[in-house]
């Protein structure tokens, strides 16, 4: 494998968790719920999946536990912001703080353990193509699954009836309620989906990307996923593009650090965060107001009779 192939491969693996988490958050935000707890749900997904995978020696069980952890965290968030109509920004932050602390407790016994890489899916024939064949057609199942999920979410939001319901609930919950649409139920399901995606993204980080667990290993990826949703103007296709741009930025930054170019490593480490700010800024300059932001985003809903 040449260096360029290796770089392309790592870009794909670095982008996949970002895309997964961003897709989940995108669906939740389209239903009108701003969940700033992505980082916490992801951290819980990473810790629980790794712990379960080591304890049961099964990556599959690990992934399932990671998803479950994300869903449970999201359910807690839903109870507070949907059940009690609490402030969404504050509750999301609390979820992140809780997730980072709790994941540290859960993961502590597994520091130092390692997992074997999971099997790749190689598509016979195509993977032998010269050039990009091996990169594109010999990947882990998550990469293909995430790409399929992107297409499914795009189809669901724009072409399906429940997707239309979800969007109208997010656009104007008062009107949606007046039409008899189940606002809170739709939002609950969307938030749980977001939790499952964030948990899966965390599992990918600990089981595939690093293959070990360390405290704070999510390193702000949940927040970058949140920024990606804004960057993508709440559209799944653009989330895919954005995730790959950010994945590339992260990986190239690491290679630049390894190459010792005389630039402080901290400056390169700060690059993804600065790039996020820059991306949000450029997007806002191009469009006068936040494009595509759901009308009821972040506003608690309490049904009247």
């Amino acid at each position, binding site marked *: 494998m040449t260096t360029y192939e290796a770089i392309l491969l790592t870009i794909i693996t670095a982008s996949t968790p970002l895309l997964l988490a961003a897709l989940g958050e995108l669906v939740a935000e389209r239903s009108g719920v701003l969940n*700033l707890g992505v980082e*916490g749900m992801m951290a819980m997904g990473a810790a629980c999946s790794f712990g379960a995978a080591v304890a049961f020696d099964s990556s599959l069980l690990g992934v399932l536990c990671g998803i479950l952890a994300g869903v449970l965290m999201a359910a*807690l968030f839903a109870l*507070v912001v949907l*059940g*009690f*109509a*609490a*402030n969404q*920004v*504050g*509750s999301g*932050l*609390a*979820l*992140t*703080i*809780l*997730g*980072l*602390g*709790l*994941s*540290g*407790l859960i993961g*502590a016994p597994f520091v130092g353990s390692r997992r074997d890489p999971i099997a790749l899916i190689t598509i016979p024939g195509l993977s032998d193509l010269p050039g990009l064949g091996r990169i594109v057609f010999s990947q882990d199942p998550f990469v293909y699954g995430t790409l399929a999920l992107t297409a499914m979410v795009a189809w669901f939001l724009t072409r399906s009836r429940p997707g239309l319901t979800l969007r109208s609930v997010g656009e104007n919950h008062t009107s949606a309620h007046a039409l008899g649409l189940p606002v809170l139920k739709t939002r609950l399901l969307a938030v749980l989906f977001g939790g499952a995606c964030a948990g899966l993204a965390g599992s990918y980080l600990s089981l595939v990307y690093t293959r070990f667990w360390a*405290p704070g290993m999510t390193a*702000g990826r949940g*927040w970058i996923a*949140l*920024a990606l949703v*804004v960057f993508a103007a709440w559209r799944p296709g653009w989330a895919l593009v954005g995730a790959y741009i950010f994945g590339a930025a992260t990986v190239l930054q690491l290679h630049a650090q390894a190459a010792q170019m005389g630039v*402080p490593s*901290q*400056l390169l*480490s*700060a690059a993804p*965060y*600065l790039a*996020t*700010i820059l991306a*949000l*800024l450029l997007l*806002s*300059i191009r469009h*006068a*107001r*936040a494009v595509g932001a759901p009308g009821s985003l972040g506003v*608690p809903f*309490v*049904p009247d*009779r």
Partner: protein
Amino acid sequence: MRLELVPRASISPTLRAVAPVAAFVIAFLVAGLVIWILGRSPLAAFRVYMSDPLQDPWALQELVVKATPMALIAVGLSYCFRANLWNIGAEGQYVIGAICGGWLALATHGTEAGPWVLPAMLALGIVGGALYGLIPAFLKVRFGVSEILTSLMLVYVAQLALDYLARGPWRDPKGFNFPQSVTFDPSATLPPVFETGRVHYGATFALCAVLVTAFVLGYTLFGYRLRLTGDAPRAARFAGFSSKVTTLAVFAISGGLAGLAGITEVSGQIGQLQPTISPGYGFTAITVAFLGRLHPIGIMVASLVVALTFIGGESAQILLKLPLDLTTAFQGILLLCVLAADALVSYRLRFVARGVRA
């Protein structure tokens, strides 16, 4: 069975006051459950976390030392949160305040510069924190960029900047390669308030911030303007209050106070610059601000309560082998409970049997 929220006709002041206390008790019970699951005695943990530190005079001083930065930051954040603006990057503004003030301490190191150094350091800390806080505010008012994400991203940038300085250009050449600066001169160190003990003058700054804020919020037009902007943005616009000016002002205030917290911590408590100078005070201050119901006096009490969990967490780590992450998790649960309790002050919960139309 279905859960329904019914708006309360009037909000009772008793309920308002009881809500944070109830939230704290619930969070405490949940934490006890977690400790029990971890196989430790919740009662022993309660003693270590809550009761032991309050009986030891040394720990009481430590309580004030830990509460100081959180109270300073949380009072600043209360300006933002009251105006419904989300500065969640106080941790970064704290670090930048420490860097700016610390720069002067290092620049004048060994020069016998005189008594002006310390006030100048504090001023630099405030200005640095305020300017750093103004970045997300400016991006918001000028370009409409969400302040939530930009302020948070800037935390990582500030931490990396401090990491670079403490390991690189500002490292003590005689420090055996430890990543830390020289120890500040006495002229650059905040003196202790009492002859014995560790409480430094930062505590008095926090007290001043609390009193000034109580006055500003209660008795000035600016305080009224903040409340109006947060509660009724349209009414605030009609009253001629520019939301842009409000945004810039509250970010500058909260950034400045966070910067002051950073430089007082470095010059009064740590005594030098290190790659890490905070156990997450900037984030915990968010919990403190809400636990104190965004009221300065409430925040002062809340900062002492949360400082207790920090000190308890440290001794629990030694005595009960409970990891420090438990403290973080507890603070997350606490914030969730406080926000839920806040919401339940305005709404009544009602359980409706399935199929019954209310």
